[in-house]
């Protein structure tokens, strides 16, 4: 099993979710995040004082998938999240040793 962590633009969440659903992914967990990277943030101005905000609103998605679904999941995210403009975000893949469904105690791929 692998953990896929994707950082995407907030307004792409719905598209990504739909793409993952279509790819047969059953679950994911998301959190609101702020990203720092090449993308320049909108400048904010309060009473004439300018603030270059280096952290930009992002969504962090995390999903654990079976090895067999990994490529489909990554591809689903990539294609749904891509706008082609700077700041589209990243996908990382991390190894997972165990997975467990709290409700039933099922382990492994059954838990996903």
């Amino acid at each position, binding site marked *: 099993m692998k953990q896929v962590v994707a950082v995407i633009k907030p307004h792409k969440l*719905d598209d990504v979710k739909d793409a993952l659903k279509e790819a047969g992914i059953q679950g994911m967990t998301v959190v609101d995040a702020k990203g720092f990277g090449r993308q320049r943030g*909108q400048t*904010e*101005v309060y009473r004439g004082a300018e603030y270059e905000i280096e952290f930009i609103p992002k969504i962090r998605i995390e999903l654990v998938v079976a090895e067999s679904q990994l490529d489909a999941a990554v591809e689903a995210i990539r294609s749904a999240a891509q706008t082609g403009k700077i700041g589209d975000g990243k996908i990382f893949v991390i190894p997972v040793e165990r997975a467990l469904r709290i409700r039933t105690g099922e382990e492994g791929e059954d838990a996903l």
Partner: protein
Amino acid sequence: MEISGADTAFVLICAALVLFMTPGLAFFYGGMVRQRNVLAMLMQNFFTISIVTTLWVLVGFSLAFGPDNGGFIGGLDFMGLKGIGQGITENWANMWAEGNVTMTVPELAFMVFQLMFAIITPALMTGAFAERLKFKAYALIAVLWSILVYAPVAHWVWSPNGWLFKLGALDFAGGTVVHINAGIGALVIALMVGKRKGWPESPEMRPHNLPLTLLGTGILWFGWFGFNAGSALGANGLAVQAFVNTHIAAAVGALGWVVIEWIKDKHPTTLGAASGAVAGLVAITPAAGFVPEWASMVIGLLAGIVCFLFVSVKFKAGYDDSLDVVAVHLVGGILGALLTGVFAVKGVNALGSGLIDGNAAQLGKQALAVGATLLYSGVVTAIIAIVVKAVVGLRVDEETEDVGMDLAEHSERAYVLD
């Protein structure tokens, strides 16, 4: 002429209450948009105060209440408030005497009370095209609309020489001038600016801060006492009647909306209570000083139910009226204007008598006033929108819609929470 201290105190405080409604409206609307557009919503409303106040002083008041030109529009004699002072001149008194109105408050008090109405009317429209109209476009629309639409319609209905006033159309505190006028204008602009990206399917289009909306509702309700009771222009029995009717319709409007949605959607909602109260307030506005208390109950109840049911029309018809200005102000306003023609009785106000008082003709006059306002405001608003579109464009670009208007248009963020 003598001014009355009591009436002056009352009208001034009522004017302050009506001014307070525009921030109230800003919060009512601001709570309902997505977080990324709340400041844009507040800005459009607050800035309307600046724009309309400036124009009203310079020219708007004169166009609305200056010496008449054929019943259609006032002259420029009062431009820059020339001749409008701390007392009541004979000139002024005579103008009103033609309409059988006796003024007991300083001219400037009347001017500023009316100004507050001129402010909130274009502000009401902002809910319809929320989350996508450029600020620049809105500012321009507000300028033009305020002069070309609001001032004439106010003249027709409230100037002693206006053609609808003379015809005997009844509009106590602004059913036609304020709500129908803004409602049809809002619809026209919403149609021209188009739907929001993702509307209606996206679950994103939920209100971002309902307590803010409820705050707006509380302020609106509070301020509406100034709006309707203040329209009696004095601290008298009629003001009391309007006050009571206003409160009853608001309360029963909320009841009506909540009960019907409870039945239909299985849940009573706070947004429903808020919406129903506003619907009731809208519908009672033209009627407040003409109908008995039980009729206010009926008007409020109908407003709550009808406006709720009308909300779904936009999904069927496919126009994106973001915050239901059409369902609440246009439909509520028409309902109220017509029901004024039904429930007005001489026992409440000698100046008006409707269907149940044996005067079926009144209903026709009300319908005429409604129709004239719809037609005039609808057409002129469309022309204004076309012009503004040509000059600065109406709609923000797609990226702005994604990122939010607060950041893109105003360089600000509403909340910076840890």
